[in-house]
């Protein structure tokens, strides 16, 4: 059974939480006691209808203000697959929570209010979806009920987005447009009787039909070592296993590998999972690898194929960055850089650009990046990192920056 991860996006009050509530409601994913709780909460708010946004807005502050502040993770399944939805906040102040929710998504649902059309958040979220290389974007034009389900309105929004989309999208990204009403359940799981002019998929239909190849199995083989297993029991006296999750590619018993950064070579003796012996393992598998010879390998090192002479070892590189902290990014400062499970110090030598998400232009003369801004940086690390260009191998191309003093995660970077 596969898992499809989705994240919502769009401006505040566009109806993201209501949409997710509706999706769950119509797929019978909400139990009776939860519906009853929704009914009484809606009544308490003085509403005469079921406020489905209350299903995901779980914090007291969110319910008081009627907005989403942090990501909620919601689950439902169909006979086809299991869905994990990240319902993210639309408010620009909480963009970092939006990025958190979107980082694992394969589909981004970007909502647009039919009355307002394209706004700044639409542009920002399209840019973020492109930066993260989310393979599918569904632009949901919501609240169609408030524009009398007017086809012309929908088409106009679609047209006005086309130039922006053309600028942000990348090869292989699928983009589709859907007119919906979350409040009245139009085009969510059932065809919209109010919009006979629309002949395409419903939202659920679109999700069910989406095929995403886990192409990472064909990417270069990368195995970051998380933990070295040394039982030191009689039975496993000399056992030394390298535990980790394959980030991309495939490993097989007998493969000649090298450990980076040292470059020492060895051969895979076994691939194990809880005592089970595997012939091969692919991206995403949490396994243990043993080698035929004793090599000095510790946490943070990576195994790659010995034949992979291109395996990069970066010390001085450029990256896109999305800044997530109230304290602005300033060049010259040292941060901790976490790439996968590997931690090293990094110095930002220069901010190379700042992106204007609306105009899709960038300015070069920049001396800081503030909360929620997207830009480019040049950085240097204390130890080399075994990272790929994000666009080519996303699972091995992103990193986070951590403030040494506050310990907060302050930025997320994508290697150029």
């Amino acid at each position, binding site marked *: *059974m*596969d*898992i499809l991860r989705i994240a919502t996006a769009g401006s505040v009050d566009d109806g993201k939480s209501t949409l997710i509530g509706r999706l769950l409601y119509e797929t019978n994913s909400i*139990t*009776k*006691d*939860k519906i009853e709780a929704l009914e009484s*909460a809606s009544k308490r708010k003085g509403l005469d209808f079921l406020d489905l946004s209350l*299903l*995901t807005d*779980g*914090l*007291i*502050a969110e*319910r008081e203000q009627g907005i989403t*502040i*942090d*990501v*909620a*993770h*919601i*689950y439902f*399944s169909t*006979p086809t697959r*299991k869905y*994990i939805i990240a319902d993210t906040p639309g408010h620009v102040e909480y963009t970092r*929570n939006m*990025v*958190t929710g979107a*980082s*694992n998504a394969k589909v981004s649902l970007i909502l647009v209010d039919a009355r307002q059309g394209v706004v700044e958040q639409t542009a920002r979220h399209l840019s973020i979806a492109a930066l993260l290389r989310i393979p599918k974007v569904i632009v949901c034009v919501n609240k169609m009920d408030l524009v009398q389900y007017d086809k012309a309105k929908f088409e106009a929004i679609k047209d006005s987005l086309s130039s922006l989309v053309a600028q942000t999208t990348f090869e292989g990204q699928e983009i589709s447009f859907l007119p919906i009403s979350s409040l009245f359940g139009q085009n969510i799981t059932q065809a919209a009787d109010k919009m006979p002019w629309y002949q395409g998929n419903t939202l659920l239909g679109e999700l069910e039909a989406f095929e995403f190849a886990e192409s990472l199995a064909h990417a270069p083989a990368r195995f970051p070592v*998380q*933990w070295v*297993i*040394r*039982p030191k029991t009689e039975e*496993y006296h000399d056992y030394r296993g390298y*535990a*980790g*999750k394959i980030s991309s590619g495939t490993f097989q018993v007998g493969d000649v590998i090298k450990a980076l950064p040292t470059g020492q070579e060895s051969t895979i003796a076994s691939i*194990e999972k*809880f*005592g089970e012996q595997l012939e091969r393992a692919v991206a*995403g*598998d*949490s396994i*243990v690898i043993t080698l035929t010879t004793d090599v000095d390998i510790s*946490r943070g090192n990576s195994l790659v194929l010995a034949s992979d002479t291109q395996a990069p070892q970066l010390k001085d590189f450029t990256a896109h960055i999305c800044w997530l902290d109230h304290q602005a990014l300033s060049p010259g400062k040292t941060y*901790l850089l*976490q*790439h996968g*499970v590997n931690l090293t110090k990094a110095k930002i030598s220069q901010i190379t650009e700042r992106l204007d998400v609306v105009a899709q232009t960038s300015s070069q003369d920049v001396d800081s990046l503030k909360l929620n801004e997207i830009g480019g940086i040049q950085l240097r690390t204390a130890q080399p990192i075994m990272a790929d260009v994000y666009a080519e191998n996303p*699972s091995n191309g*992103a990193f*986070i920056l*951590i403030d040494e003093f506050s*310990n*907060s*995660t302050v930025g*997320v970077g994508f290697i150029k």
Partner: protein
Amino acid sequence: MTDSTIKDKIGQFPRKLEDESIYIMREVAAQFERPALLFSGGKDSITLVRLAQKAFFPGKIPFPLVHIDTGHNFPETIEFRDWLAKETGAELIVRYVQDSINQGKAKEETGKYASRNVLQTVTLLDTIEEFKFDACIGGARRDEEKARAKERIFSVRDDFGQWDAKRQRPELFDMLNGRIAVGENVRVFPISNWTELDVWNYIKEEKMEIPSIYFSHQRQVIERDGMLWADSEYLNKEADEIPFEATVRFRTVGDMTCTAAVESDAVEIDIIIEEILSAEISERGARIDDKRSEAAMEKRKQQGYF
């Protein structure tokens, strides 16, 4: 739902979830000096123990199992706990809410809804301090409850164990930042993305042992607020609440005073799974502790509850 749609929904356990959880277990062992696995005896924490075993096999689980014993546990749970610790060779640490009460740090609730569920937090925080645990692994899932749906996998708590929902760290991709200041600690939720059904499907596929109270059995119960409550010496009964025998099982296992039973003939796991799928009530609907107010869970978490 009709029978056929229920069958359709059972599906299989998505194996990717296990890989992710094992990855999280290993991150905990690597990033922290003194982690612990909080073991409640319920199916979720039993699942955690299995994942920890898998993560470090053929090595032993590199952290202790910690049980905060309220004194109101089902005897079957305690028996199972001791068996599992032996079976896995893991170290078991038990601390008692009764001790916190005796020390005057916690006060027994009164009235017919009295339970020790809230008091647990006091004992938990003391235990964290006693052993200087910097990470505590728990079996909470995001699908359980709306405040839990907001939780990160690595959830940082301050000196007082408090959760600040408005200041959570961004958590990107699968990168987990476990860096903390002295006194802070992290609650870790490796099965955040599992649903109740995923847990049951996993237990089934892995042929795991679980406490007998999850299966149908005969028990003395009383009826209160439309639910069946297990009769025990800890339950404050009113005069008209007369125990009777019923065929029941438990869907979630907490204290005897705050977990309701459901009528059920399910003696095997397949039937349990079908029951869950056709149930009209959510898992937490059987937790009396959640019914105290709409925001009961968030408020308890702010206080350092799991």
